[in-house]
């Protein structure tokens, strides 16, 4: 355990050193991260004020709260591992990872957390600025704030594990962009990214409830917004726990199978 802690600490330093080399692309990347929820925020606020001040139970200011929190939640759980894996396998970089006596997922988690650590202050400032402009309605109870700590941690972990497992598709095919695209569309509609899921017709809500995505994005946002009852929060935590177990099993299985293929075919 101590060894892993040291590895994470060292990876943080390495990632930090590498990231500051590319300040411009870092800023561009962060702007892109901000723009998407900002567009939805403006669209839905406009729709709400055009239809008498609200859509469903979301007022203009509630939409502002939803999308500003979405920006932050998405920042916590976002990964880019799927883009990276294809490149790694093609370039033979994975061989170096396989030569090391540590599971490569640790380096990836550490790298993700490190770069999040670096970009989080920027995101908080942006969220604060947006809050000043859009006057969001965010009213979480103290217990909800407390609950958001494990909820956000699980959201990060489960999303990371799922997307890491999905990234391993690169072991089977060199055309991973198709699977990535399909996945992103799924996430966009069924996680609450494009709009709060409670505004969708019930069949879509039902589908979203059995899939992991809403528990990783929409649920933490609604919790922080102050829209959930303690019972709903517990249900969400339970769903996250179930998906944690599933995604861990998935990572183990996909990794083993992938390495078996890699070591049969070579690179």
């Amino acid at each position, binding site marked *: 355990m101590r*060894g892993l802690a*040291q*590895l994470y*600490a*060292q*990876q943080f*330093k*390495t990632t930090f*050193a*590498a990231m500051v*080399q*590319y300040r411009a692309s870092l800023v561009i990347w962060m702007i892109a991260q901000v723009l998407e929820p900002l567009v939805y925020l403006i669209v839905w606020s406009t729709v709400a004020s055009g239809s008498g001040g609200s859509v469903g139970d979301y007022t203009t200011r509630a939409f502002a709260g939803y999308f500003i929190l979405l920006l932050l939640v998405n920042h916590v759980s976002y990964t880019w591992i799927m883009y990276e894996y294809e490149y790694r396998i093609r370039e*033979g*970089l994975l*061989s*170096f990872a*396989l*030569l*090391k*006596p*540590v599971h490569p997922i640790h380096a990836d988690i550490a790298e993700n957390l490190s770069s999040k650590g670096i970009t989080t202050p920027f995101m908080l400032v942006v969220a604060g600025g947006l809050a000043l402009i859009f006057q969001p309605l965010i009213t979480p109870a103290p217990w909800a704030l407390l609950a958001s700590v494990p909820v956000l941690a699980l959201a990060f972990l489960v999303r990371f594990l799922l997307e890491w497992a999905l990234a391993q598709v690169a072991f089977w095919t060199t055309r991973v962009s198709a699977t990535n695209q399909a996945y992103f569309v799924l996430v966009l509609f069924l996680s609450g990214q494009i709009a709060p899921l409670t505004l969708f017709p019930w069949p879509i809500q039902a589908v979203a409830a059995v899939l992991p995505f809403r528990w990783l994005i929409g649920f933490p946002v609604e919790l922080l917004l102050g829209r959930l009852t303690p019972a709903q929060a517990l249900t969400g935590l339970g769903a996250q726990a179930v998906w944690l177990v599933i995604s861990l099993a998935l990572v183990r299985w996909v990794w083993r199978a992938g390495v*078996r293929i*890699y*070591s*049969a*075919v*070579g690179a």
Partner: protein
Amino acid sequence: MAAPAIELKDLQKIYIVSERETGVRAALASLVHRRVEAVPAVDGISFDLAPGEIVGFLGPNGAGKTTTLKMLSGLLHPTRGGATVLGYVPWKREKAYLRQMTLVMGQRNQLVWDIPAQDSFELNRAIYRLPAADYRRTLDELTDLLELGPLLHKPVRNLSLGERMKCEIAAALLHRPAVVFLDEPTIGLDVTMQRRIRAFIAEYNRRFGATVLLTSHYMADVEALCKRVVVIHHGRLLFDGDLSSLVQKFTAHKTIEVQLDDCQANLRAYGEVVACSDGHYTLRVPKAETAQITGRLLADLPVCDLLVEDPPIEEVIELVFRQGEA
């Protein structure tokens, strides 16, 4: 004799490669029926390395050298046969094994491009869980042997190819592996840098008693480092033994270099004249007759200097490969 550090038994790797002809029709046909071909990259080879031995692993491009090294370092599963390294089956990739071996690929980089090498070294320290004192000592030794001092704090992308290779080698050896696989460690480097890396490998082997299996296309590497060589071609073993007996076995000739006072002499009566200029002659003679011809040369001609040599190792290797082709 101690148990071998590396042991290969009838090791085989067959790649399944899909093939198709060019053109639209062939592309469409391949949608329905994919033709595959089994390509044996390594076709049943066996040899052992004793602990502390340095062995040159030779063969032309595509002979199966890298595939073999990848199997021995656990990156590839063999199709058939077995191997143990330090008593471990490499492709099980047990952590205890991975901690004791390294693979250096001259054409691949593990160092992070944008940061100084030292930062990548620190990362390896954490990955291999090296105690601070051990790490410090090894790093100091490697810095000293490879003259890394001025390089450690420059971003890797600013290093020259040779400088980068030195750092790659250091990164791969920080955990002091007992078994070292080197795949073309000197490729693309200038002669001075090749020599330095060669000297380093010899010193690492001497100091730490590491077992080294080395592939290289530069015969100078092999001559300087390896008493013993293993030659493969088309995935099969052609030769396993001392470098000197490789020369013995595969060449029936020696060369005699003669320096005469006389620039006009005709030496054709003594052997095949390979080159001559300014009284310096290079003769190729059948090995069995070398002593007798040398005697005659010395007796008949005004010889200033005479040197009997085996043909250059490059020539020998080429000959070996050509015989493997037949």
